């Protein structure tokens, strides 16, 4: 599983070089791939992810003086990307948009029950779409990015206890959504 805890080569030891604008631009560009993938997984749309990452990069540029430790760039930029995605998800809820997600290709791991597996995957994807922005982000950071509770807390700017609680409730709501797809999350 690709996660956010993999560092791109050469991006972590720039130190004071990030003080220059050109170096900061390079740093952002170096992290675009993982930012784009994170945004796409959260938003479920490649187009939205492109726009979100582009906006996040601009926000990062404007607030680059807030980055005191260049070694923390990845966590700092991820936080901006996550916040941008949260805003977009909330905006979507205010302006209901019907999102159509392609059915996942057959990847049955066990012969014999692939139909149930496909059904479960569809239902899971739909249930995930019904979650709140915060629940989605917490699940993505935990199960897609494989981040620890502490790392998630750092990226979201909330205490670890809140992350644990949010994770627990997000899983519970996801299960509830699977049992009863009509439940408004």
């Amino acid at each position: 599983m690709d996660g956010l805890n993999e560092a791109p080569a050469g991006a972590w030891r720039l130190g004071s070089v990030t003080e220059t604008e050109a170096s900061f631009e390079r740093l952002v560009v170096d992290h675009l791939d993982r930012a784009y993938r994170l945004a796409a997984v959260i938003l479920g749309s490649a187009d939205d992810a492109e726009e979100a990452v582009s906006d996040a990069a601009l926000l990062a540029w404007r607030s680059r003086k807030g980055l005191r430790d260049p070694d923390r760039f990845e966590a700092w930029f991820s936080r901006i990307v996550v916040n941008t995605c949260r805003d977009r998800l909330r905006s979507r809820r205010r302006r209901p948009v019907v999102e159509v997600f392609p059915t996942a290709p057959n990847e049955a791991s066990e012969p014999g029950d692939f139909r149930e597996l496909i059904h479960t995957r569809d239902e899971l994807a739909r249930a995930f779409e019904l979650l709140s922005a915060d629940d989605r982000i917490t699940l993505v950071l935990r199960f897609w990015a494989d981040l620890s509770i502490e790392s998630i807390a750092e990226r979201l700017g909330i205490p670890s206890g809140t992350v644990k609680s949010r994770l627990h409730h997000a899983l519970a709501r996801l299960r509830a959504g699977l049992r009863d797809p009509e439940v408004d999350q």
Partner: protein
Amino acid sequence: MNEDARFEGEIRAMLGRRDPGAAPTHLGDTVTERMRRERERSRFTARSRRLVNAVAWLAAAIVLSVVVLGRPFELGLNPGASPAPSSLPTLVAGDGVTATVGPPLLQLLLAVGVVIGLGVLAARAARRIVGYAAVTAILAMIWVGSMIWASDALGDGGGAFGVDPHLERPAGFARGNFVRAEGDVEFRILVGVVNQSHLSLNLLGVAPDARGLPDPERLPRILGLGYLPDQDCCLPSHARPFSRMALGPGESVQLVVLGRAGRCASSTVEAGATLIESIPLVYEQLTLLHTADVVLPEPIAIVNDGVC
């Protein structure tokens, strides 16, 4: 594998399917271009902000110095008055007569520009203290502007008042301080004026006669301005030619107005009288020129013969 682990595995798989892989190649170009434009915009904004800041701080400093120190700024305006006396020169016609006043368009435009600049600074200041300073400067400018806009800073100073040569009030006239004159002779009015505003001003002189009479020498008219030094109160003959002088709030000066009575003036044939009720004095406050009609404690009257 227990139920929780299986569920988490399904979530991981579901999220993994949402991962589109590497970012499209044009995303890097888009982001770089947006940052480049932002860099150029922020440089332009920074330059503009520095300029606005400089203007705002300059305006604030000017307003603050005016309010705190109460001193006017000398901008080299020449009132056309005589130079300061060196060996007791006498007052003659033309002394202390200064140019007429035009509308203060330049100052008005400058003030509006500064207020707009301060408003922009207050709205966009990154630091709250700068915003507060800009708002304070705007309020101070409005306050100062309201004080200097009207031409009412000069008033009767309550000092010595009289006219020379003097004539006892003829019978039949209820009021007036009469001038003894036969024909177009000189007379002098002694009057004190005071700066009754909260800001200092520069007294520039007396406004020229703007009546445009076809035969001006026929009637009384004002021809010049002088002043009495403090130690010389109160003989009009000791008047010195007026030159520009600063008056702080509440300060007063004893002025001598030089006039001529006109060819029709008569102290013996009492057909009627011409009254001088106010003196048009020109002053400057914060580069704004004003003409204030200072009302005399009692009208100066010149009797005419009714024939001339």
